């Protein structure tokens, strides 16, 4: 089956047409690729058409895209027909229901504003159930009346049941069409949610009516018994409630699964789609309402899924869903056009067509007005006349009706061809005429539009307060309304459901006000960066404000997040940059530090992973800068005290230095072929402790990789050390690279041997995080003084120099000595936990050092180091312990 035109596009990139049959070089294999190629080709055509439509703003602002697509479909179908002499392609019901519809329904369910939806659930259900029932019965009966009156052609061979069947499929408002048209109209949310919600929820009614009448027609009206009617009624409840239940079940599963996807972030989005699709198929399998299933699955899982999955996954889910839904919609409308060309299925009867058009419009309007009249007695804000007009007029029919009418069995429903033709006309009329005119109508009636403004923190906060106030007033009045139950539900959700379905880290930080706050922060940050945060240069920086910066920067989201783990929804880097005016200063500072303190080092991360996305370089650099600052501070602190670091340990280090370097190559950029990795300080420690144990090293590195974070400054240190030796001469400083505690990393939790120090580590890191800016000055002072008094006893010097902050970098780097020397404090506890891995003679040397160092150390601490001395001591101890292996 050679495709005439459209697919030609898809087959274009293939081998030259005149492939030589004798040549094995190229072979024509169209048959093998035909099906997927056609699919891809059609989607491509549709998508290209979208581009073309959007080229002209003038056209798309007047004509909805769905109209254009249908017209395009008509054109393409015409071409196909002209060339192939028969209609090759049309909207297959199975394809429509199994592949094209689910993405659209999932998208609308998942992104349904749930609060608005449930607030108006009563109205939505009324219109969806009663409205649809009324429409189908009234339309079917009225058409039958027309037939009885003899206005219809004799060829329309249909009884009451046939007309009722036709009425059931033609009367349902179509979600695809409604969404396509109303999205461009921007009416106010309440009106939109009512019309759109109705179109989604009426699926259950449509399915039941369609199936019941279909079976009645097939049985023959004569054989229908009273129990069959009862069964019909019962099946309505089964189908609708069952569909919703299936959706809820899968929503629950989905939420539960995403709770445990921490290690497989990359496939998180897949679960969302798979389970939603499974929900659809399961419902379809047991002939429940599949649209209801997916809708409810989407609505209900969203809260938990969004809290569980990572931010990148969230973006992925959003875009994939929108892409799928949008392309499905495009294809549906285009195929509607193409299918309409197929005249072999047409059987025109003017009376039937006109009657149907008239009745669906009339009964829709009547139904809406009657129901609204009843509903308004219970609604807080009544739906006014204008709303009713829009609702009546917005009842668009679409592809669902078309697919259902195609599905009819021509042998049983003898008037099928007439019904098909009528359905096509109705769909075209509603989508083209009503779709085209609804926008001007809305404008003309001055329907309240939705004002698209972004939620502010105030609004969110005060609206929460309003909710509480209203709930309280209802309690006082003693009238338990909707709010009461919502409150109840929220409490239940908070107490049980959320705890069960959310990660602990996500659950802890789950609060709507907080969420909005985070979102606003991100938005601000992005807009700041977009507006050219890069314009800020060092020259514009004013340092005087530095000391006063502390309070604000401490409460920054970033720090909070560091403390609370990665569960929250924020990207560290983004937040670091800016939130408010005050924080612009932070950003300036940041840039200065970036420029002057940090020489970005190319890290050719030659790793490719299908399973993990490496963090962006920027993010890593930030960490490095921060950690470097910390390291420098500590280093200079030590250097002022212990420039006497032993020559003995120098020797020791040289001995096993090579081995160690290999071990710690995790960090080093040594050309040893090993891709440099990020390493946390904990891991470094682990590596060094386990000098002889390769297994352990690989273990830890694996753990590390999973977490994908850490610091990489050790190699830098060694590089700098090599030069520093020459420059600064006799300055021997303990290499401190691996002592720096960054923020508490997950490695802390993951590495079992770190467990005993957990508290300590957290304490240190959270503290150090906060004292960076201030302490850097003192670090500078200390480093200067250490330079001046290389030989003088430590602890005697003042640090008189107040220099610009950006200064210290080069000098300090030079001060790092080549030798990886070491000393140790007399810490029995630490020594007792010393690993047994080393049998090297250096071990015996270590204790000798201690008496020498210890008094020094204590004296120093007590004299100069101030309140944070104890902390520094602790940190200082660490490397000693680690490096002793």
């Amino acid at each position, binding site marked *: 089956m050679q495709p005439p035109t459209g697919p030609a596009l898809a087959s274009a990139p293939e081998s030259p047409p005149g492939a030589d049959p004798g040549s094995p070089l190229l072979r024509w294999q169209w048959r093998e690729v035909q099906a997927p190629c056609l699919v891809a080709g059609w989607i491509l055509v549709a998508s290209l058409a979208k581009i073309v439509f959007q080229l002209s703003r003038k056209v798309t602002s007047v004509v909805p895209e769905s109209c254009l697509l249908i017209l395009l479909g008509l054109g393409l179908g015409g071409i196909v027909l002209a060339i192939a002499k028969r209609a090759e392609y049309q909207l297959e019901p199975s394809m429509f229901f199994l592949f094209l519809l689910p993405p659209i329904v999932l998208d609308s369910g998942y992104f349904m504003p749930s609060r608005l939806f449930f607030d108006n659930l009563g109205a939505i259900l009324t219109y969806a159930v009663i409205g649809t029932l009324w429409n189908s019965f009234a339309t079917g009966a009225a058409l039958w009346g027309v037939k009885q009156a003899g206005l219809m052609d004799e060829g329309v061979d249909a009884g009451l049941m046939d007309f009722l069947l036709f009425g059931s499929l033609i009367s349902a408002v179509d979600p695809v069409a409604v969404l396509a048209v109303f999205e461009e109209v921007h009416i106010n949310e309440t009106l939109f949610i009512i019309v759109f919600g109705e179109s989604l929820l009426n699926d259950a009614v449509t399915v039941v009516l369609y199936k019941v009448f279909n079976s009645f027609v097939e049985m023959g009206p004569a054989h229908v018994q009273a129990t069959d009617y009862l069964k019909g009624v019962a099946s309505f409840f089964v189908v609708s409630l069952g569909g919703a239940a299936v959706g809820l079940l899968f929503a629950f599963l989905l939420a539960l699964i995403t709770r445990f996807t921490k290690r497989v972030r990359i496939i998180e989005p897949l679960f969302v789609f798979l389970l939603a699709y499974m929900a659809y198929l399961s419902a379809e399998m047991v002939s429940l309402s599949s649209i209801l299933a997916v809708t409810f699955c989407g609505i209900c899982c969203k809260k938990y899924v969004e809290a569980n999955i990572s931010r990148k996954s969230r973006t992925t889910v959003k875009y994939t869903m929108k892409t799928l839904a949008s392309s499905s919609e495009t294809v549906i409308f285009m195929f509607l056009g193409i299918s309409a060309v197929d005249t072999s299925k047409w059987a025109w009867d003017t009376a039937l067509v006109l009657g149907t058009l008239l009745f669906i419009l009339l009964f829709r309007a009547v139904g809406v007005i009657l129901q609204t009249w009843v509903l308004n007695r219970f609604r*807080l804000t009544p739906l006014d006349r204008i709303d009713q007009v829009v609702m009546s007029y917005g009842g668009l029919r679409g592809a669902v009706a078309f697919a259902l009418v195609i599905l009819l069995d021509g042998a049983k429903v003898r008037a099928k061809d007439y019904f098909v033709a009528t359905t096509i006309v109705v769909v075209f009329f509603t989508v083209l005429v009503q779709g085209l005119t609804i926008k001007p109508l809305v404008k003309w009636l001055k329907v309240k539009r939705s004002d698209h403004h972004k939620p*502010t923190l105030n609004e969110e906060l*005060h609206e929460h307060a309003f909710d509480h*106030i209203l709930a309280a007033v209802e*309690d006082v009045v003693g009238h338990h309304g909707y709010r009461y139950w919502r409150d109840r539900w929220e409490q239940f959700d908070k107490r049980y459901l959320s705890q069960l379905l959310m990660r602990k880290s996500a659950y802890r930080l789950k609060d709507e*006000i*907080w969420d909005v*706050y985070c979102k606003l922060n991100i938005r601000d940050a992005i807009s700041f960066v977009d507006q050219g945060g890069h314009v800020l240069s060092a020259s514009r920086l004013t340092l005087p404000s530095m000391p006063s910066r502390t309070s604000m920067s401490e409460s920054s989201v970033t720090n*909070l997040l560091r403390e609370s783990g990665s569960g929250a929804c924020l990207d560290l880097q983004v937040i670091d940059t800016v939130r408010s005016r005050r924080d612009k200063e932070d950003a300036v500072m940041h840039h200065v530090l970036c420029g002057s303190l940090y020489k970005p080092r190319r890290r050719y991360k030659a790793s490719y992973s299908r399973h993990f996305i490496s963090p962006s370089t920027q993010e890593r650099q930030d960490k490095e800068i921060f950690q470097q600052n910390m390291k420098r501070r500590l280093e200079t602190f030590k250097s002022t005290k212990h420039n006497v670091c032993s020559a003995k340990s120098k020797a020791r280090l040289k001995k096993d230095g090579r081995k160690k370097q290999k071990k710690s190559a995790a960090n080093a950029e040594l050309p040893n072929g090993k891709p440099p990795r990020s390493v946390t300080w904990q891991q470094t420690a682990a590596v060094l402790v386990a000098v002889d144990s390769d297994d352990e090293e690989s273990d830890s590195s694996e753990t590390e990789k999973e977490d994908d974070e850490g610091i990489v400054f050790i190699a830098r240190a060694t590089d700098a050390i090599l030069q520093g030796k020459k420059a600064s001469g006799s300055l021997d400083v303990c290499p401190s690279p691996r002592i720096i505690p960054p923020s508490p990393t997950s490695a802390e939790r993951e590495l079992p041997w770190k467990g005993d120090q957990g508290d300590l580590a957290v304490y240190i890191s959270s503290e150090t995080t906060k004292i960076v800016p201030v302490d850097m000055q003192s670090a500078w002072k200390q480093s200067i003084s250490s330079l001046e008094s290389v030989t003088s006893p430590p602890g005697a010097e003042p640090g008189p120099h107040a220099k610009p902050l950006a200064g210290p970098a080069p000098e300090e780097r030079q001060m790092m000595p080549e030798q990886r020397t070491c000393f140790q404090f007399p810490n029995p506890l630490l020594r007792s936990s010393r690993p047994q891995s080393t049998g090297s003679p250096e071990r015996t040397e270590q204790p000798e050092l201690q008496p020498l160092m210890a008094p020094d150390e204590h004296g120093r601490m007590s004299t100069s180091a101030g309140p944070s001395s104890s902390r520094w001591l602790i940190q200082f101890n660490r490397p000693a312990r680690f490096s002793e292996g």
Partner: protein
Amino acid sequence: MGSRASSLLRDEEIEEIKKETGFSHSQITRLYSRFTSLDKGENGTLSREDFQRIPELAINPLGDRIINAFFPEGEDQVNFRGFMRTLAHFRPIEDNEKSKDQNGPEPLNSRSNKLHFAFQLYDLDKDDKISRDELLQVLRMMVGVNISDEQLGSIADRTIQEADQDGDSAISFTEFVKVLEKVDVEQKMSIRFLH
């Protein structure tokens, strides 16, 4: 029950309440029966304890604030008139009310009165400003316990920053109204009173 309530309530009193609050006759009698059922002391006034006995109110994060709002400044009893006056803030605005009463006194359920009710829940010291501390207190009540004080502080800072126009680091009532101008307060601060 309704007849008992109305028998206790004099007709002219009902008329006055009707005029002041806009409630219908049946709504007033219905609410009066609720009032008497809350009034355990049977002295025609409600005390704070009477309110606190309502179980759902006890778990409402803003419950205490709202109870306070029922009581006039410095008093700890509220009579039926006062009770109704407070409730009238939450009466939905009806269509026919929008047009009339251009020159008359502003009805209790007007937009600005609704907003003012909410505002005074924040404004403890009645200086017509929501200070950072006052905001923090309310935030503490409303958000989960898992949000740290620091985080709350940053939320409060941001909230004030967003609303503050005159740079006094507090939210005045005008700023409060301005910030919420896009919110459908008429709907979000109304409940349906049964007829």
